[in-house]
């Protein structure tokens, strides 16, 4: 493994130019080689998704299709099959994301910016929820929702009753998102300057007024981080959907994609196109908000 000394001599005072010695060249070769490794499944998937059925069998993977093998048909086919799942996912992921972030922000405020005994105890209860393997709640979760009978409760509104799986999924994801959202906001609030809050207290603002006028506006950057983190997590989840969503018309995108993969055992071009379509929202978010994404995932540790 090429471990390179980063001597200051490698850089001019303004740091714009560097001398390329053999060690540096070796370093870049390794780094670019690693890029090839990390991107190979995606690159291979992308080239495969543009090939005809005969093309992905007869041509080399990773090599883009020549005009005779090129086609957009896999994308159309995959989009047709995922359309419903994409729409269903949007309808439950957005509210679940916003609600869990809001609850997390409120809880973190109550647990850090207001002083009272027992804060740490309550906080530990919140924190432990982050590390839970979801398998240990699946059976009760299914029992709980069948006992609540949300579908019957919503019988007055047929549209909602048909979507009851998605409503259950929204509430479930909100609940399980609260711990991590609380942790993310808490680390942010801990570092927040208290001067403004104290001044507002002096002016007679109550806790809610302080949250609404000062803490919430100042938390907007952390809301960005938390919403991005939660969106990715909830969008990518398959497990809860498998347990809670039974009617095909309510399938979320991960379920639709899983079904597409299962029903088209060897149609790799359609599978790959489908994988990209399903991953597009999170890839876009990652590329656009890379820093917030990294902040979110490391905030969990």
């Amino acid at each position: 493994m090429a471990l390179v000394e980063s001597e200051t001599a490698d850089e001019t005072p303004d740091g714009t130019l560097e001398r390329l010695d053999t060690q540096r060249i070796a370093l870049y070769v390794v780094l670019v080689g690693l890029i090839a490794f990390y991107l190979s499944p995606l690159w291979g998937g992308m080239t495969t998704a543009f090939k005809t059925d005969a093309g992905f069998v007869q041509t080399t993977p990773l090599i883009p299709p020549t005009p005779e093998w090129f086609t957009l048909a896999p994308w159309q086919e995959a989009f047709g099959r995922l359309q419903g799942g994409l729409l269903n996912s949007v309808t439950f992921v957005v509210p679940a994301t916003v609600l869990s972030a809001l609850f997390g922000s409120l809880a973190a405020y109550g647990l850090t910016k207001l002083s009272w005994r027992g804060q740490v105890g309550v906080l530990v209860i919140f924190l432990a929820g982050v590390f839970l393997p979801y398998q240990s709640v699946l059976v009760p979760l299914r029992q709980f929702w069948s006992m609540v009978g949300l579908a019957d409760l919503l019988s007055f509104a047929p549209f909602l009753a048909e979507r009851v799986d998605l409503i259950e999924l929204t509430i479930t994801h909100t609940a399980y998102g609260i711990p991590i959202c609380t942790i993310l906001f808490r680390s942010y609030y801990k570092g927040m300057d208290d001067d403004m809050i104290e001044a507002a207290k002096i002016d007679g603002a109550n806790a809610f007024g302080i949250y609404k006028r000062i803490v919430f506006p100042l938390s907007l950057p952390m809301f960005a981080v938390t919403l991005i983190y939660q969106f990715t997590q909830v969008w990518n989840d398959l497990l809860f959907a498998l347990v809670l969503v039974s009617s095909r018309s309510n399938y979320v995108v991960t379920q639709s994609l899983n079904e597409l993969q299962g029903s088209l055992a060897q149609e790799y071009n359609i599978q790959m196109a489908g994988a990209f379509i399903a991953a597009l929202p999170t890839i876009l978010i990652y590329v656009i908000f890379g820093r917030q994404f990294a902040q979110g995932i490391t905030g969990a540790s």
Partner: protein
Amino acid sequence: MDFDIRRTLTRLARGRREAADSEEERTDERPVRTDGGASSTSTSASGRTSRWTRLRHSEAVQAIPFWLPPALLMGLFVYGAISWNLLISLTDWSSLLQPDYTDLSLDMYRQMPDDKSFRAAFRNTVVLLVAFTGVSLAIGLVLAILVDQNIRFENTFRTIYLLPMALSFVVTAIFWAWMYNPTTGTINVVLRGLGLDFLTRNWIGNPDTRLAAIIFALTWQFSGYAMVVYLAGLRAIPDAHYEAAKVDGASTFRMYLRVIVPQLSAATTSAAVVLMVFALKAFDFIYVMFGDNPGRSADILAVMMFRVAFSRTQWAYGAAVATVLFLLALTVVGPYLYLQYKRGDL
């Protein structure tokens, strides 16, 4: 009760001492609240503010509406559900009827040691935990050190190494099922291209390599996470430590081994715990690749639990397997949280 943000800021500028003075004035001016039936709770010794008012103004009371609703929601779904799961695992519920909570026993747990499929799933889970976490940490550390060398386009490299984490298990499982395809998959095609034909095999079809193939793909997905954690750790080490090691004549390799890596123990611990939690949740990946029965060679507790409970409706046994998985997570996370608590990081 309302306040004016501009006045607040002006007061801030005037300094805290003055602000503190005005607080006393305000306290004097503040009218005694006697609204509602609460006034009957009598007045305090000073006679100026009622106990009700003080209670309303105590931050402990004001904090309740903020943390209680999320705590209830989470408490119900997390702690309520875990307790309920434990209760279900003590019944013998294995049908579409309702469980019988009056006849509790440890039967489900007693049958585990003799259940070959449980033993395989348990063994694979532990192997997955240890191997995946170890390999991901090692690769993450190397990536972090490489990226930390004042390289150009550092952001681009980092972004690409971390990219797989933005993808769902469903997506990565589809990609890797294709990568591992024995005839048209990239891995074997590249190996053949390099003249390494003897290394080609049916990676996920062959029980001997199935678990290793899963671990390799998961490492691809999550090593970027370890890199990010290690990078933060590396950036926190003062330059003086690198220079001191160099003055002592240590080689680069020795410098990292003896001076830098030991200082990354906090990063290692937290990354390891989170990676282990990922490994315990690797259900989605295996489920998409193999369905709910990946065979003894790649079965893990998370998948077994789902198969037993949701496909075979042996709810009680599924709940018992889930409890084992929960205890496994607890042995990893419990000491970590305790350590954090001791260090005052909570």
